[in-house]
């Protein structure tokens, strides 16, 4: 049992925090939120500062947590260009890794994951986007919804249906890497999001998009499994987003309480709210680190991962709301109101809280330990 980060990681945490404090200026926070714009320059800065590196997943997790505590929108936007990379890392051919991950690792490309569909929501197996084999190509038709990076990515890891034959819906799915420059690919940026407005979200339409056969990830028909495996990885990082967002809201609430002096911070009802916030954050963080520890040691525990993701999302929303309640109407135009708007997405993306609970309980009923 060891609950402490190494000195190297603690130093990295300091570095990430300092980066966020310096680069996530108030002007940038407000600008990218109100303009609903992706902060390309911050992505580059974060890359160049060595903040986002897949050489050490702990560092990615730490960077996400620290940056989200300073600004969730900018924090996620700076760390999301690699979204979906694990699918290629785990299941992609050497050719695909070289062709696509190389550019990603050099900070020269942005990628994304296209799974959700307009009718599908949480129902991954309901995938209707079709890929028909024609000669040495796949021809893709269909649409995807709420795709992060959809309109800025160079390529997308895309879930497609390659067979209708099997009565089990989650069979017959495969994963393709699709270049966004392909003819017939169309991404429409969706605007008017409640929060995380520095990230970009798109609707995507594939109209006879041709994809070379070598862009198939792994084997035909195993797409559902690949994506589920990926979610069990990405959910740990999403949990870290939640922990960071909650911590950011808490830090501000604590500052506000202190700044109002003993008459406010000495009140036991105020103190209880602070204690309840902090306890929830601590529990979510420790659980997230436990899930990460299993994952990073190649012994992932999907039950614990889903618990961490669900708890962290809930905590982010809870703490953001409570922070605004403590702050009162003074916060109607503030960092905290933005954090509140950003927080809610954490209960929705990468598996809604409802999906996480089903994953958890089904594992429990199967007798899996937690």
């Amino acid at each position, binding site marked *: 049992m060891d609950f402490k980060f190494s000195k190297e990681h603690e130093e990295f945490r300091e570095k990430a925090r300092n980066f966020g404090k310096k680069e996530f200026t108030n002007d940038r926070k407000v600008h990218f939120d109100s303009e609903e714009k992706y902060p390309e320059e911050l992505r580059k800065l974060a890359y160049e500062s060595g903040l986002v590196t897949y050489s050490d997943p702990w560092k990615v997790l730490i960077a996400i947590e620290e940056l989200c505590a300073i600004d969730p929108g900018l924090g996620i936007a700076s760390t999301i260009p690699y979204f979906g990379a694990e699918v290629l890392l785990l299941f992609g051919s050497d050719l695909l890794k070289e062709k696509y991950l190389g550019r990603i690792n050099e900070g020269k490309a942005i990628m994304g994951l296209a799974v959700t569909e307009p009718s599908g*929501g949480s129902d991954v197996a309901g995938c209707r986007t079709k890929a028909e084999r024609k000669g040495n190509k796949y021809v893709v038709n269909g649409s995807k919804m709420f795709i992060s990076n959809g309109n800025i990515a160079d390529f997308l890891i895309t879930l497609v249906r390659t067979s209708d034959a099997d009565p089990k819906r989650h069979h017959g799915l495969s994963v393709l890497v699709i270049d966004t420059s392909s003819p017939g690919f169309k991404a429409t940026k969706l605007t008017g999001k409640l929060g995380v407005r520095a990230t970009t979200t798109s609707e995507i339409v594939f109209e006879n998009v041709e994809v070379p056969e070598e862009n198939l990830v792994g084997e035909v028909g195993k797409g559902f499994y690949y994506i589920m495996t990926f979610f069990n990885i990405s959910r740990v990082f999403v949990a870290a987003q939640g922990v960071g967002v909650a911590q950011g809201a808490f830090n501000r609430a604590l500052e506000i309480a202190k700044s109002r002096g003993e008459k406010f911070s000495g009140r036991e009802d105020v103190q209880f709210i602070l204690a309840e916030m902090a306890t929830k954050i601590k529990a979510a963080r420790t659980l997230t680190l436990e899930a990460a520890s299993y994952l990073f040691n190649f012994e992932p525990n999907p039950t614990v991962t889903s618990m961490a993701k669900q708890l962290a999302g809930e905590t982010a*929303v809870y703490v953001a709301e409570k922070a605004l309640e403590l702050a*009162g*109407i003074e916060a109607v135009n503030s960092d905290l*109101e933005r954090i509140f708007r950003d927080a809610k997405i954490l209960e*929705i993306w990468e598996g*809604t809280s409802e999906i996480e609970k089903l994953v958890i309980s089904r594992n429990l009923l199967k007798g899996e330990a937690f």
Partner: protein
Amino acid sequence: MLKGSAKEFVAKYVPQGENGLEKSGITKDLTKALAELGFLNMCLPAEAGGAALDEEPYLAVLGEFSKYEPSIAMEILLVNSVAASILSKFEDGLQALAKTGAGELGFIVSPPSPYARNSFHSDHVSLDAELSVVLGNGTDYMIVSDLDGRTLYVKDEIRFKRFPRPLGFRALQWGKAEAKKSQYESVGKGMLEEAFSSGMSRAVSSIALGIAETAIDKTIEYTKVRKVFNTPLKDFGPVAGAISRMKVEAELLRSGLAAQSVDAEILRHKALDLALDASRTAVQYHGGYGYFEAFGIEKLYRDSMVMKMMFGGVDQDLLLYRKTFRSDSGII
């Protein structure tokens, strides 16, 4: 008397589509139209040209508007509950109040908070002040509580810097304000605090409940048609359960609001909590769609949070405690 319903008004005057009024804001014309139909002077005293209606139709109007456009309900509240209760107290105010009820003057108010970062310098004649948060439907005059708790009616020289994107009730004017050598009158102590806490509890409850009911009804309709795993969302027990429990609560509060026997403070607290719960749940069950303005759901969550911040904070709680224990409590 009222010359139309909220529904008709909204259909006629409010731009349709993505959170219509949030983009355009409440214009002078819209305020004028509201006044002409009798919504802005419902509860104003006759001396200010008001209809002096009972509480019942007032609550009904607030509730109905809050279902279609909470910002309008809030404007009606600010005029009929805030401006009316302050300005009707003295002759000089009655005139301004009459013009406000007629839609000719707009005003801003600074929601009272012991923690507001406001500053005041005044002599008998004029006032310099900086206010960190104000909201309203115009800047012709301003109502504010100073650091001693005196309620001030500030008549001129008001500078207003609008917040481009406040959290909620975006159709109203929110911003910082300054008074510079402004003429003012001191109206009384604690009046604004009283208006914002118990004074308009039932009116606030009606707005919050309207938002909550909208959130619940839209979610019920959506979960009937939206399918996941080939099954309507409503057929998932936890979804049905969460919605049912909120509907239950809304019905109880609705009945409590009708019954004069239920304490108004109580209603306000519960209605504010329900609005936040119901709108948060609505976003959740609308999934990705709920997160986008176009669906008109996320707005309910933002507005509910602002209601809670303005009318349900830890300071307002203390009033509730006092009622329970029939003495001060919750303070050491």
